[in-house]
């Protein structure tokens, strides 16, 4: 198999590899290929970083307080809204 052909052979396995769901045999095969292929190493590393960037930017994202207030009002649940400066809800 040519080197480039080998790279494209592993491309469909990239997601499973990053998710830790690749079979041990294929995982070892891919890692052997990556040890010799800088391009594939970079693609794997930058794809992993792409996922991490979205995860860390999402995990910390909070709903703006005015959006929350309007939501609770629309749902007729205003009495239960937990304000950032009020640790306990009025009715819970």
């Amino acid at each position: 198999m040519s080197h480039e052909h080998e790279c494209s052979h592993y491309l469909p396995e990239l997601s499973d590899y990053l998710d830790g769901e690749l079979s041990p045999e294929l995982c070892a095969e891919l890692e052997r290929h990556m040890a010799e292929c800088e391009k594939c190493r970079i693609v794997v590393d930058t794809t992993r970083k792409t996922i991490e960037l979205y995860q860390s930017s999402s995990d910390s994202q909070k709903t703006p307080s005015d959006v929350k207030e309007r939501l609770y009002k629309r749902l007729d649940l205003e009495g239960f809204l937990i304000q950032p400066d009020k640790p306990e809800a009025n009715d819970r």
Partner: protein
Amino acid sequence: MQPEINVGRLIQHDRREYAALVEAYTDKLYRMALRMTGNEQDAEDVLQETFIKVFRNIEGFKGNSSLSTWIYRIAMNEAFMLLRKHKPEGYSLDDDHEDDDLTPREVASWDPLPEESLMSMEMNHHLSDAILRLPETLRGVFLLRDTEHLSVKETADALGITEGTVKIRLLRARLKLREYLNRYFREPGKENIS
């Protein structure tokens, strides 16, 4: 830690349980809707309509999927409906062109990622911009799987597609995003590796 939501109490219209559910899911649904639609007003509409439909239809929740998956399915449907509404009449949602070549073109190493707290507004803007360039069908899969941490099966259930389709779309979404973001995060002076 997410509180346990009691479906039985929701069916009995227990308002405290409603409020607990809203508190548990608001941030998740709002951020997903914002990334999905790219518009604050649309995200707010998705958020409100999702909870209204959840409360209205809770008696029909059969437990075939988890409550969480069921809620995400309603929210995704709302988001897709809004996206469709904004398109000219007769247009369907952008589908992925599966015959597109996914072979990475931009290959250069990236700077180390900043700590979460140091992520700048500019960086967040790049992330939002890149995700909105994805076809909607890929965007939905990526958000549920990679930012909302649903399993492949839950993502498939929430979107009404097969697990195989989730896997294919997830790979395509990740590779496309990597390609879009390459220009912002590659180390200065590093050339593409051919």
